[in-house]
């Protein structure tokens, strides 16, 4: 019972952060700012969801696999994000600074 409540909370939190990342991906003004919400999804969203699944699976081989998935994601996603940003900068993509829209 407690297990169910805990995993429900974790999964709900994960679902929330995953969606925030999606909204940010659409809403942010340029490529570099879009990287940040994407990283919210990759770390918090994936972390909470997978942890929620782990609580649900209990101590078993399934949990070990979930941990492996999480570790892979946490190791690869920053590398991919860095490579993306680095390539975009080298390519001459200029980061948006918000000056022209008169942002506060």
């Amino acid at each position, binding site marked *: 019972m407690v297990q169910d409540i805990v995993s429900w909370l974790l999964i709900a939190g994960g679902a929330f952060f995953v969606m925030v990342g*999606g909204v940010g991906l659409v809403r942010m003004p340029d*490529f570099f700012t879009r990287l940040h919400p994407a990283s919210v999804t990759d770390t918090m969203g994936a972390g909470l969801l997978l942890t929620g699944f782990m609580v649900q699976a209990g101590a078993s081989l399934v949990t070990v696999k979930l941990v492996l998935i999480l570790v892979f*994601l946490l190791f690869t996603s920053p590398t991919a994000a860095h490579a993306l940003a680095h390539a975009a900068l080298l390519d001459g993509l200029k980061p948006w600074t918000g000056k022209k829209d008169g942002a506060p």
Partner: protein
Amino acid sequence: MFMAATAALLVTIALALARAFAGPSVYDRVLAVNSIGTKTVLLIAALGFLAGRPDFLDISLLYALINFVGTIAVLRFIRQSRAQEGN
């Protein structure tokens, strides 16, 4: 409960698809692909639990790796072809 996770993931995939369609730069699209990849990993894991067959996790695991290798390969390619256009 897994249903909520699945729904959230599907919505996010839709949003990322919108970004992939709109672009505007290649990098936005690569970011969208990478992002959808991560979400597919999670989606397959959630589906596995939803169907009561967590063996699906092996595919998630494979995906997590392919997604990364794919992104790096695409970026290498873009860099290489840009360098060729330069000279």
